């Protein structure tokens, strides 16, 4: 067995590589640029850019299992998935685990199980994830044994989006108790649970050729998460964000911030220079009444093991160390 984690430089990819390595599994980190931390651990690294099929030539040599953790722009994700899946078919890979996302369900509300139809009012990111799933299924028809994982919002140590960014917004009282604007369900899944599910997806025969939602049971409301996390971080008393603040954030402030983000990005400055923006779609997410159920994963891959309180504590510790 030899496992290639493509996109090993990313948040989930890195945790997955480290975990596999710690378990003594033969793991190869697929990266665009070599990483010092992997080298230190003596982990083999293969350098490629999955967007460019010609660089994939030797990447899959000897590889039996592939995990696709590649993130990027919609076009980049689609191209990488296509190339990686085709190369895996050619290379006779035994198992191909692919990271999709609950974004494929768009803004659908209600109880969303593993077989819920995808594609309702999806954004560009969600559409790319759907297109990627199609490519994976195509490869499946060509004989590749695939697993599609659709994690909810991945939080925990290392999570920039749902832990670090939220912590910054809480610190500046830009988020807090949102009242009527925060009644949506905050469908979290701890990064360690995601990593465990990915490993099970490689190991368990019954996982083959199926798609799995990955989400915690009894997810809290957004208000609950924001307040609990704020408390864990010690940003108390929690600020009650007036409805008008959030409206100004998503309607007015988000636009210049987005522009500033693009400009500083183009000029090559770190994005840290620009404050986080609360986009209109993030604002909508705070009120999305959708609960994702991971019944299939709970049975086939194992139910999430990290409790909410533990997850918050770990997240807060990680943020304070930063």
């Amino acid at each position: 067995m030899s496992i290639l984690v493509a996109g090993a430089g990313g948040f989930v990819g890195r945790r997955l590589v480290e975990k596999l390595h710690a378990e003594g599994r033969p793991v190869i980190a697929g990266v665009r640029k070599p990483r010092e931390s992997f080298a230190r651990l003596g982990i083999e690294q293969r350098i490629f850019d999955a967007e460019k099929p010609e660089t994939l030539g030797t990447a899959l040599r000897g590889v039996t299992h592939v995990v696709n953790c590649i993130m990027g722009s919609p076009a980049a994700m689609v191209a990488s998935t296509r190339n990686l899946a085709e190369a895996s078919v050619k290379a006779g890979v035994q198992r191909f685990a692919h990271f999709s996302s609950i974004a494929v369900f768009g803004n659908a509300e209600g109880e969303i199980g593993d077989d819920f139809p995808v594609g309702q009012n999806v954004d560009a990111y969600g559409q790319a994830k759907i297109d990627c799933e199609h490519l994976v299924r195509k490869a499946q028809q060509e004989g590749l044994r695939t697993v599609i994982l659709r994690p909810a919002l991945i939080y925990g140590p290392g999570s920039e989006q749902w832990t670090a960014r939220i912590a910054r917004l809480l610190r500046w009282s830009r988020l807090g108790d949102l009242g009527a604007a925060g009644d949506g369900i905050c469908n979290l899944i701890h990064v360690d649970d995601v990593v465990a599910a990915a490993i099970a997806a490689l190991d368990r025969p019954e996982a083959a050729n199926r798609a799995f939602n990955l989400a915690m049971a009894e997810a809290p409301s957004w208000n609950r998460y924001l307040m609990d996390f704020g408390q864990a971080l010690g940003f108390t008393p929690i600020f009650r964000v007036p409805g008008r603040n959030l409206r100004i954030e998503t309607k007015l402030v988000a636009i210049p911030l987005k522009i500033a983000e693009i400009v500083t990005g183009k000029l090559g400055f770190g994005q840290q220079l620009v404050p986080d923006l609360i986009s209109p779609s993030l604002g909508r997410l705070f009120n999305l009444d959708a609960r994702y159920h991971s019944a299939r994963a709970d049975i086939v891959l194992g139910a999430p093991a990290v409790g909410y309180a533990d997850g918050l504590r770990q997240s807060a510790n990680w943020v304070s160390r930063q």
Partner: protein
Amino acid sequence: MMLEASQLQSATVLSTQLCIVGAGPAGISLALQFIGSGIDVILIAGGKAGHDEAAQALYAGEVADDALHSPLTEYRHRQLGGSSATWGGRCMPFDPIDFERRDFIAGSGWPIGHDDVAPYYPEANVLAEAGDFQYDAKKAVEGGMRPIAEGFNPVSFDNDRIERFSCPTDFGSRYRHRLAHAANIRVLLDAHAVEIRAGGEKVEAIVLRTLDGKEITVAAERHVIATGGIETARLLLASRSEAHPAGIGNAGDQVGRNYLCHIAGTYGELAFAPGTPVFHGYDRAWDGVYCRRRMALRPEIQREHGVGNVVMRLHHPRLPDPAHGRGILSAIYLAKPFISYEYSKRLHGGDAMTPGHVLRHGFNILREPFGVAGFLLNWVKVRTLAARKFPSLIVAPRNNRFTLDIHAEQVPNLDSRVTLGAGLDIFGKPQARVDWRYKPKDIETVRVALELLRRDAAATGRASLDFDPEGVAEAMLRDGAYGGHHIGTARMGPNPDTGVVDRECRVFGTDNLYVSGSAIFPTSSQANPTLTIVAFSLRLAAHLKREFLPKRSEIRTSAIKGAAA
């Protein structure tokens, strides 16, 4: 889903499983529990989403004594959210003693105990946005709340029982989006219940009228009246028919009786030694909720002295008397025209402003202009612009001389009543008439508490209380019945002779009619009512959900039918 009654045809009949009349904290909390339950609900708001003069005018009625009770269009709001559109947000649960039969209080004793409602308080606290259900000063804030004053522990009182404050949350604007969003809930705006129609024990429908003259009927399997303490009595009484000649639930002549508010006022002078640090303001819990200490007369002391439940808070001096010497108090006194009747009534008292008064108040302001300006700026920040608002005016008096803000139980009183008056509303329905009465016991409760505090305070050596026992009644009745708390008109009882609803809040003499709200409280407690109203709505929701479950026998029949098909 939100429905405007104006979009419906006249004579429309809507059928549903559960009809909730009234969309204040009671009705909204109840309706929220059914989101996604599969049970079809209609919630009748009795007004618009926001204040509307014409709807508000439907609350007009008669008051027997203007000096004792405010007009019926005040301290009530006929709209989505009900009176929570304006409430102060003060929350605390009832005490176990409130539910007990106390030999020294006629009419006391609930058919249920504190334990029956206790499980619902934490969730009620969340809905009211008053944070954790934690009412112990030692635990509500990390490290414990600040003491009133070091060493000041009047022994007859529990000084660790606190009150917590809601934002204050307007249940209408806060939860409207959730109701609008729910597929199984229809919120009917701008429709007013005028009659509960029941040929016998079964309530068939609620008859609604709209301001533009339509009649709409809602026929449900179960109906809940949640129209507030006064309007609930009015609706039950006005629903007279052959089957219910005295109105619904009124076979024992109990509907509208025992109309209770609270006995409240500011009185006495509690003087701490000059220079003693005294804290009578708010601490904030981790979740941002404002918490404040009170002195609560201990239950064993209530029993020993045979008096009702009562709490006291340290308070700034009465505003109208410029002798308090504080610029900010004078500024607020002079701002009277800009403060709503409901809040200015108690703040400013009934006294007329004379030019001499105005001058002396002006002088107070000039004595500390920067203090006043700073206070007002901060007020804009923590109150006007804040979504979680600083709950009340906290001003330290000069010389450490506080008054006491007293809030006491009013004991049950069969002669204190809501009845139907002679006037008619625009639908031709009789208006309510309120004849609020109090008993000597109500005043005695306050007098005894003050006397105990005088003794206990002296024993601490930290403060002394000065008050005139002869003046207690006048001080407590100066502003009449405490506004906005309308309790007891459809009280819970063991049987129809002493109550209107049973222990599950079902109206006696009916199969499928329930009441939610402070109307069902047989006794008034020291506590403001809303948190307990919400807790009872949650309890009723749990009961109704059980009732709606198909009976075992029905499941079996349908299974057999299914098998045959």
